[in-house]
């Protein structure tokens, strides 16, 4: 059951990552077009602003994919010396802490969005982008990350209680360095 949930989340976030990656590619094309147009004395205008927004959105929405691919860097000094049960404890503990922090960030991201909704604020730039357009998807990305982190933590806890701690290794265990060994 837990592993099935993780498999579904993985597939879901792979789709998200592909979408985010495609967005970055579009952004690169956009920047490139602007450089070429500047050579001819015109400009698309606002590429820098758009690139910044693209980065903020790519970051907030890409986080969960990296989490599920176990890409967030951790240090492996004590953990690697423990047996499989203690390793699982390390992993679950770090997931609980992580979920806590991410939920805090998502909660604190809300006032940013709330303000731009209330004041109808626009960016202080030539484009005058209504900030709601970028704050809303950015906030949603952090909420998504918080949801994913919490779900993964619950799955891991549930496996731990069922004494299937060996099974948690495959979605909250392995480290970046080990992955490159495969």
């Amino acid at each position, binding site marked *: 059951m837990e592993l099935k949930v993780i498999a579904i989340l993985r597939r879901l976030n792979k789709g998200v*990552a*592909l979408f*985010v*990656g*495609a967005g*970055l*590619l579009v*952004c*690169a094309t956009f*920047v490139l077009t*602007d*450089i070429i147009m500047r*050579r001819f004395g015109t400009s698309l205008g606002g590429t*820098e*602003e758009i*690139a*910044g*927004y*693209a*980065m*903020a959105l*790519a*970051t*907030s929405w*890409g*986080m969960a*994919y*990296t989490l599920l*691919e176990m*890409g*967030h*860097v*951790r*240090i*492996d*000094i*004590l953990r690697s010396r423990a047996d499989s049960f203690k390793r699982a404890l*390390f992993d679950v*503990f*770090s997931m609980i*802490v*992580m979920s806590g*922090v*991410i939920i*805090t*960030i998502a909660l*604190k*991201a*809300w*006032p*940013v969005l709330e303000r731009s909704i209330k004041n109808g604020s626009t960016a202080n730039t030539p484009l005058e982008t209504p900030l709601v357009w*970028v*704050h809303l998807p*950015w906030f949603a990305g*952090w909420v998504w990350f918080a949801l994913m982190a919490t779900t993964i933590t619950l799955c891991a806890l549930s496996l731990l209680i069922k004494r299937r701690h060996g099974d948690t290794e495959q979605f909250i265990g392995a480290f*970046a*360095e*080990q992955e*490159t*060994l495969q």
Partner: protein
Amino acid sequence: MIGYVSIGLLGLLALSIPVGIVLFLLGFGIDAFFSNFPLTKGLGNMVWSASNSATLIAIPFFVLLGEILVRSGVATRTYAALDRWVSWLPGGLVHANIATATMFSATSGSSVATAATVATVAMPQAEKLGYDPKLFSGAIAAGGTLGIMIPPSINLIVYGFLTQSSIPQLFLAGLIPGLGLALMFMLITVIICLIRPDLGGLRRTFPFPQMLRALIDLVPILMLFGMIVGSIYAGWATPTEAAAVGVAGAFLIALAFGGVSWDMLTQSLTGTVKITSMIMLIVIGASFLNFTLASAGLGRELTEFMDGLGLSPLGFILVVVVLYIVLGFFIETLSLMVVTIPIIVPMVLVQGYDVIWFGILMIVLIEMALITPPVGLNLYVVQGARKSGNLNEVMLGALPYCLTMLVMAFLLIAFPSIALFLPNALQ
């Protein structure tokens, strides 16, 4: 406060909590214990402004460039071409490893990607031609580290972002130390192989026409480097925009070599998202910690702390070098850089050192961290590509290069102009 941050940092990292999350936790701690006004209130804004950055989008662009290039097949040709030119030296193909790594460093912003690329094409040759696996694989691991020194460099972009220093200047400053390191790597290889010829394997010479023909295969990489770095210094593009130029160039190369497919594209894109988010969680965490430390009055406390130590500027820098070497054994490199910047860089500046120069010194030390066990990513990457033998061989083989880097670090301290000559000359 310095003590709290240092102990908290090491303690939480040892619990194997993700590095980015540790930085946030420390920031929360500073807010709770050391600040007179609530800093966490601004967390949302901090996270937004740290990620809404046209500078940092260079990171996914350079990662994507590397991902495309790795899958394009251009590495095989480059390696074969450089083999024709350098394999007559004592040490033979080991020099081709270093030279290929250097070439790829000039288009790649990441050391791990560089090492992975070279290892994939080089390793099959080692077995075929009967090379000693230690020196051969050590040279790849060490050569790969040049990826973050020779421009473009993701680590220098992050350094420039967090210290608010000029990224083009950092890129210029990295060029001479990067090429210098490559030459020193080759020199030490020649010396080792003159003393112990059995470590080097077969030396080969090729007829001159063949060497000339091989040059054609170096053109794509050199052109790509020219496009990226040239467009920055011609004033056509910012480092970010140059990264987009690089992505286009890598695509053209991949197209020319028939390496573009749907699978390749999706793998490159998802790989890019994964690495970018990994880096960004750490960078955002560091920005938040930076902000809380500065607001809670770290500057004043640092000055007092430094006065209390009574070290000369030189003595202080030597302590910093030792600190990085020790931490480099255990902490992954980008994390090592990012977690130490908020604390170390202000202290270094208080001592009157140049921020660009220190960036380059830090990169040399970080490069060492990449090939020192137990946590040295490049060692694992090269071992991963070998599929035989064990990790100890790569570690042993990387050791002479590690010492070479230490020499470079001392050279930089003794002669800061190695780094600062180009940025000053072209200002």
